[in-house]
């Protein structure tokens, strides 16, 4: 009989879940209506305050936001459902309206209070609060210097999303000092490490002076974790070509992690610098199979470096047993304006792999030319029409 009782127990829990799911389904169906109701409440209250501010701006019955309203807003926005409604309500507003901008500035203490409230909440809500700050700082140009330190503490939470959203919020605040601190904080974490791509993309949303930020983070580079260093170097590559010297130091330093040196090679592929040409040539002609990645990336980077010496090195790379080195070298030779037919003459009969790769690159280019010549309709349209 014990097994039956167990099954009854399990069945009962499942029936409870079934009922929960059904009720949840009904709750979801009513979700949109609830959201509209909350937005209507917020609209009514905020518009009353906006009228007061408008009068203030036009000199009639000077009035600023009522303390009562701030208290009400604090209480309501402490509930995430109202914060969601407020998020949507802000989207509807005209950010250029002076009264609205004044209103947003005057409710800053509410956000400072909410920063402490949501820090104590579960991670999903904390992450949403950071997302809210990042969005509306960007769109509404709110000044929120006071809560930057508070947001910095959100990086200590375990949730990946909380870290990412907090980093985005800090990027939107555009304070290089705080952002450098946040990168140090992210590097300190032993467990959850953000993917360098995620950090780079977040940094690219930085709205302040990028040069000031780069100068500051380069000064602290060695204090960051390896992942953050990679992300930072990629960010610099996307943002500016004015950092050849520190990049060259990284490139020349054999003690540096290879990923950082690869990032430096890519940087010099984007921003050619004659002073590093020699080291790139050394990498591309290196026959050591353990160092093939240096050769492959350098082969790609040398596409923008003129000169016969570079062409000779790339032709040499075409004989490499490594597929990637040959592929990148053939692409770079193409960028040097050498016709594949001429290269065929050079390589004729010497190396089957090199010939095959050149042939493939030649045919690929013909395909691209054919696609362009066919004057195909815009690609998106073709896809849209087809599916």
């Amino acid at each position, binding site marked *: 009989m014990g*097994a*039956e009782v*167990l*099954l*009854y127990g*399990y*069945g009962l*829990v*499942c*029936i409870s*879940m*079934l009922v929960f*799911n*059904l009720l*949840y*389904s009904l709750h*979801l169906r009513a979700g949109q209506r609830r959201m509209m109701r909350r937005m209507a409440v917020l609209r009514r209250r905020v518009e009353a305050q906006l009228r007061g501010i408008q009068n203030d701006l036009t000199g009639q019955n000077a009035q600023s936001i009522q303390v009562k309203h701030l208290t009400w807003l604090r209480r309501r926005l402490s509930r*995430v459902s109202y914060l*969601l409604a407020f998020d949507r309500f802000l989207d509807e507003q005209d950010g250029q309206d002076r009264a609205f901008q004044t209103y947003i500035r005057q409710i800053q203490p509410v956000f400072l209070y909410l920063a402490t409230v949501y820090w104590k909440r579960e*991670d*999903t*809500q904390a*992450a*949403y609060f950071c*997302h809210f700050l990042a969005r509306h700082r960007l769109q509404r140009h709110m000044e929120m210097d006071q809560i930057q330190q508070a947001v910095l503490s959100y990086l200590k939470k375990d*949730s*990946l*999303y*909380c870290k*990412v*959203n907090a980093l985005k919020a800090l990027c939107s605040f555009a304070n290089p000092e705080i952002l450098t601190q946040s990168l140090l904080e992210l590097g300190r974490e032993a467990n959850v*490490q953000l*993917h360098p*791509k*995620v950090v780079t*993309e977040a940094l690219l949303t930085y709205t302040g002076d990028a040069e000031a930020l780069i100068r500051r983070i380069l000064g602290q580079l060695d204090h960051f974790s390896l992942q953050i260093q990679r992300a930072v170097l990629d960010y610099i590559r996307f943002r500016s070509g004015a950092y050849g010297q520190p990049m060259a130091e990284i490139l020349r330093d054999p003690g540096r992690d290879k990923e950082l040196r690869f990032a430096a090679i890519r940087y010099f592929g984007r921003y050619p610098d004659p002073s590093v040409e020699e080291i790139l040539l050394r990498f591309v002609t290196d026959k050591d199979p353990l160092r093939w990645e240096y050769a492959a990336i350098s082969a790609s980077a040398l596409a923008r470096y003129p000169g016969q010496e570079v062409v000779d090195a790339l032709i040499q790379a075409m004989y490499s047993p490594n*597929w990637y080195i040959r592929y990148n070298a053939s692409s770079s030779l193409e960028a040097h304006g050498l016709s594949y037919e001429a290269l065929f003459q050079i390589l004729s009969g010497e190396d089957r*792999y090199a010939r*095959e*790769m050149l*042939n*493939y690159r030649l*045919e*690929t280019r013909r*395909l*691209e030319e*054919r*696609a362009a010549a*066919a004057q*195909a309709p815009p*690609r*998106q349209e*073709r*896809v*849209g029409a*087809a*599916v």
Partner: protein
Amino acid sequence: MRDFIQFFLLCVECFFILYMVGYSSFLFLSVTVGSSELYAARRRNQLKNELGNDYYVPVSILVPAHNEEVTIESTVKSLLALDYKLYEIVVVDDGSTDNTAQVLKDAFHMWRIDRPIQRRVPCQAEEEVYETRAWKVPITLVRKKKGGKADALNMGINVANYPYFLCIDADSVLQHDSLEKIARPVLEDPTVVAVGGSVRPCNGAEIANGRVVRYRMPRKLLACMQVLEYDRSFLASRILFDRFNGNIIISGAFGLFLKSVVIAAGGYDKDTMGEDMELAVKLHVYCRESQRPYRIRYVTDAICWTQVPERLRDLCRQRKRWHIGLFQSMMKHRNILANPKYGAVSFISYFYFLFYELFSPYIEVFGVLTTLLAFAVELINVPFMILFFGIYVVYAAILSLTAFFARVHTVDLKLYLSDILKAVGLCVIEVTFLRFVMAWVRMTALIGYRKKKHTWGKIERQKIQIK
């Protein structure tokens, strides 16, 4: 003699009670954990706890095809409609005898090209390679000698340009955001080596631009019952396995892999019919043996729509293949069983698949035979047997319905009254009828299975309703 039979039946009874309790507990846990995880995932989605659209991991989509002239064009078109920037499409035509290659060449204006292919995993030689650059992303078609699905996928790996590859079936359609969603765990955790996506039956669905505009339960009852089955599997048990990094199946219809690790592990096994399961198990083995930190993830919101068989004969054929594949994978990696080095993968995942999937048809048939024996020697309490069977049916039906109703937590699936009625009616038939038919099919699957090596499953294809 009677005493011996009585003792034998007592042992069988104890075994079955333990077996049932184990199975019920697993199903219960998977449904409760799955349902609560789906609820949490929806909440995360609502509160923007997700990485945005700006992060792109380069992915090569591999489409192995054999005699897929009916569906291949719509499949590739659906891939071109994905909301993703950095990917390529590689179709491997594995010795088709129909017009699969011609359909592709005509539809996408492909040109023959001499492409050097680096053989990093073994596969049959290529016959022709075609490419086009006239579309949103590069499309490559490789025609090769027939070598089976695993061989075609290995060719795809060799041709792939990007560090991650995604394999899908040629009769499947990806939802517009599925590539972005399946790649997300890679960004969230750098140790992720493979990600399985959610596979759902598209019979009954209407898809436009990779978006499901209308999804109802299929008209055919057999397909409806498979919807319940898929819900139980993808909206429940895989989520549970994911909790402890124990997924040993990544569906061949939709899975993302880190190419370098798959190559290091030796690629797909050409001698196994269930190449998808074999690869997932192999990745566990490779990463554990080489002491590489790794995660194999499963994501519920990355969705691939696939056709499920609507005829019993096709379904039986498909399930036979799956069972043979399961048998081959389990046998090949039998050293995992009760091996502490593999932790939960050994003691939960492998154990579950061995006893509740591989052996289950034999155990079920053995149960029926012992029931007949007990009946013959009058050692059975018939009313109790009927009661117990009734409890089992009701319990299994409730679990199926719980998994079915868990779809309220997914963003794209809605509940309709007619679908609810269908689900309620069919969950009982699925447990009492289809399950036993499938048990018989799976039990007989291994007879003469060696002859079926390197064959593709043949299921009657229909054009997917893509607008």
